[in-house]
């Protein structure tokens, strides 16, 4: 981006709606949370409603204490100041799925102020991004449109949300992506959000403007609403930057408007212009007292916070010598982090050295397992694969009883169909051959059929050994222990060359 529009700089601010994982809704006792694996579509429409969340006249909101605690914890985890006094406000607008004709939110006195999030970027570009504020609010219901008309489902109405508002401090789509991934990692790690992207647990609005590089003034911004995939947010912002730069270059101006992103066309389009934006007529919610958060309550909640993703990354790096990239993957998803730590624990039960096990488990997780999760677009961990399986695989590969390739096959099999490590190795014939007597004939056969490479090796071309190992692995059907083969080749061709060289 930087190279393409060098004279322009993009300015990006993000507003993220995070659904809090409370059991009940924010202002009534109706169930709000989905069971694991359940989707909103599985719940009978309007079965989770009561006089309060359906906005019956005369009903009154009562604030869910757990929701407040989750919001405070989200604030603490992002280094916000927690306001001792914050005020709920009514945001007034008409829409059929907004039962009261107003949304209870917070306006000029939000719960959390001035926090920050550390975003990891390539090439020493990691830095803090300021969070302006975090406020609490209720979700609206859902309008279901069909040819018969529109139906309203209020199951979601009154679901507790926090809105996390960043400063307009990001300058590239990738930075926005990093910010979102880190925020996601934090709120899921501390357990205040279930993190189900498909169900809209984590929705992002992006404010995008461009300006001449070096300018202090902000350009006219557009807001891209309700994108619920990190990848799409990046793509939407990238598109929007290009669109705005093009407009400015052509001498036109950017219009302040709200836009939607269409992933199928990879483009944004206008939802409404600034003139059509409603005047929300905010005023303090008279039905709720001022929210008071005592320092004692706040500190008790801080004490309950688990280790945060960034702290975990540092610990993994210093204790286990893992790379920045690996620790980033491990802490991006709470499930992955928990799986990693559980597998490490299992490894110590098996008597494996911690740092080695950490590295090996990480490799399985960041390569084989993260890939599988990503392939299914954020699908959860397989129900079959357990941390103990990984520990077992680490042990066997260390002992030479299983190749890394074999281990990956075992993972694939258990991921899909379940089973135990030993049984899969047996049934798939994956046991690694570490028996010298069985391997020597193979080694000799290959060396005999490759005189050119053998000669090259002997003349000092060390790298050729990789080719030879590969040929022998192929012959063994992938079952040979590659370390052992290399040793055998060296033995066969004589150690002298090696020694002369060094």
């Amino acid at each position, binding site marked *: 981006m930087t190279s393409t529009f060098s004279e322009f700089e993009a300015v990006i601010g993000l507003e993220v709606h995070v659904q809090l994982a409370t059991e009940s809704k924010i202002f009534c006792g109706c169930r709000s949370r989905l069971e694991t694996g359940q989707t909103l579509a599985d719940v009978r429409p309007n079965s989770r409603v009561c*006089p309060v969340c*359906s*906005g*019956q*006249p*005369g*009903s*009154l*909101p*009562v*604030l869910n204490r757990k929701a407040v605690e989750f919001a405070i914890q989200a604030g603490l985890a992002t280094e916000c100041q927690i306001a001792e006094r914050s005020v709920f406000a*009514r945001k*007034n607008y*008409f*829409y*059929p799925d907004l*039962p*009261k*004709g*107003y949304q209870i939110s917070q306006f000029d006195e939000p719960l959390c102020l001035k926090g920050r999030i550390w975003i990891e970027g390539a090439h020493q570009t990691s830095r803090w991004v300021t969070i302006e504020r975090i406020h609490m609010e209720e979700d609206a219901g859902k309008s279901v449109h069909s040819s018969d008309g529109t139906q*309203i489902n209020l199951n979601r109405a009154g679901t507790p949300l926090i809105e996390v508002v960043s400063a307009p401090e990001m300058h590239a789509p990738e930075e926005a992506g990093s910010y979102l991934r880190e925020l996601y990692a934090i709120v899921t790690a501390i357990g205040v959000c279930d993190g189900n992207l498909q169900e809209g647990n984590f929705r992002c609005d992006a404010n995008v403007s461009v300006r001449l590089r070096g300018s202090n003034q902000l350009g006219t911004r557009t807001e891209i609403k309700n994108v619920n995939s990190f990848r799409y947010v990046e793509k939407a912002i990238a598109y929007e930057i290009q669109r705005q730069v093009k407009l400015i270059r052509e001498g036109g101006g950017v219009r302040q408007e709200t836009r939607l992103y269409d992933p199928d066309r990879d483009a944004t389009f206008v939802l409404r212009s600034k003139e059509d934006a409603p*005047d*929300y*007529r*905010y*005023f303090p919610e*008279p*039905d*709720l*007292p001022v929210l008071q958060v005592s320092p004692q309550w706040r500190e008790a909640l801080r004490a309950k916070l688990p280790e945060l993703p960034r702290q975990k990354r540092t610990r993994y790096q210093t204790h286990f010598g893992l790379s920045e990239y690996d620790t980033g993957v491990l802490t991006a998803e709470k499930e992955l982090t928990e799986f990693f730590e559980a597998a490490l624990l299992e490894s110590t039960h098996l008597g494996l050295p911690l740092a080695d096990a950490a590295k090996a488990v990480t490799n399985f997780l960041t390569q084989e397992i993260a890939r599988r999760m990503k392939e299914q677009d954020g699908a959860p961990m397989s129900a079959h694969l357990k941390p103990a399986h990984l520990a077992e695989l680490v042990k066997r590969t260390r002992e030479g009883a299983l190749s890394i390739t074999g281990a990956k096959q075992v993972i694939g099999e258990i991921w899909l169909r379940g089973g135990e490590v030993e049984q899969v190795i047996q049934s798939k014939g994956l046991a690694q051959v570490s028996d010298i007597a069985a391997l020597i004939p193979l080694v000799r056969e290959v060396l005999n059929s490759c005189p050119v490479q053998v000669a090259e090796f002997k003349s000092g071309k060390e790298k050729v050994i990789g080719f030879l190992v590969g040929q022998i692995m192929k012959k063994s059907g992938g079952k040979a222990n590659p370390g052992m083969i290399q040793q055998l080749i060296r033995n066969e061709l004589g150690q002298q060359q090696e020694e002369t060289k060094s």
Partner: protein
Amino acid sequence: MTPNQRLPFDLKQLHHSIDSIHAAFCRQEIGAEELTLEYLSRIRASHHNAFLCVTESQAVELARQADRRLRELGSEVALARYPLLGIPVALKDNLQWEGVETTCASRILQGYVSPFSATVVQKLLDAGAVILGKTNLDEFAMGGSNENSAYGPVLHPTHLDRVPGGSSGGSATAVGVGLCVVALGTDTGGSIRLPASYCGISGFKPSYGRVSRYGLVAFASSLDQVGPMARSMKDCARVHAVLAGVDPKDATTREFKVEPDLKRPIRLGVPHQFFGQGLSPDVSQVVKSAIQKLESLGAEVHEVSFDYSDAVISTYYLLAVSEASSNLSRFDGVRFGRRPLEAENVLDLDSFYKKVRSQFGPEVKRRILFGAFALSSGHYDAYYRKAGEVRELIRANLDQIFEEVDLIVGPVAPTTAYPLGSKTRDPLEMYLNDLYTIPANLAGLPALSLPIGVESQTGLPIGLQLQAQRGQDQLLLDSAIQWEDVFKDQQKEGV
């Protein structure tokens, strides 16, 4: 009731007190069902338009239940357990009662059946009360004359060409003509006290936060409060004792510190600003002589200064209409709210809202528009925020007064009940009527209207307003109960 008070219960007597009914139950002179049927037949025969809905079958069922309890538990135990057992009561029709229509006297809620009961209604039922029906009011409690009802005005109990006052006019007239023993009203800017004063009955607005608003269809949430209206302050206090208390469903209810009994003469504060321009000489004279009467009974009377009487009306109306504009947003015809036929085939949402919301009456529309304007982004600071600041000044001023006196005393309204239609053309004139009652709402004070006499020429009732510091509801009620008999002689008994 005292044991030697052995007058037989007269069913046809216009007014019955809770005590006289309960005494009759004890003596088995009458049953709850018989009493209920008498009141239901009075309602049927009445032409005051006080009731919007009479819940005959529920009432008879509740009365039979009361009789069963009297029979099974014995009257002593039954009355101890159910303090309002068998008492015929009415609800202002902005209170939800499950299974019964709640219209708020608006076209827009016609046919809306409550899916739940207000906390106060549940408490009445739990106390054994027999609910006879729902009373008429100004649409969404917006008005001071009960002429803003979509179902026609309520008539004054005795002077049929006059207004009963509003917005709890149906409840006031129902009590006034003996259609029920007690009625619940709601008071946002005087809506209990004003009609009580006009109709010559007792009406009590508790401290804000003393009684649950859950199930009261909100007009202005920070001002609304539910209270009793009855023939005596004693009965009001009995009902209030049932209604009061913290409700987990209403976050604005709270505990109040109970002050110990006064060990000295009570101090009354008289703000001279409440006797200025606009107050009718007759009302002024009756109120002043009532204050003298109290002084002669041992009260200390102090002149105090309420410095914001010029700001009261505008402050109140800005806050009330702002909150109302938001509270009434939900009447959009989507989940509830009558959909007029012409709203069914519109093509866009805005036209739909327009058709549905056109059903509001003119006063409600006026307030929604004012409120939406006062809250709009360009005007918020000048109107809503400023009004909130003045409200704090008013509250502080009243707090200061209550450091010197126990009760503030003065008129309820500038005049007695006026002729129907005489003020409908000028909303501002109607608003000015609320000058004396509004401060209690702005500051969350308990306040009541006690009948003290009548206007000499017309015979129309005049009320005395007593207000106390927030939380001092009991002191206020006890004082009024102590004094109410003194003024009984000065009123023409009956209708």
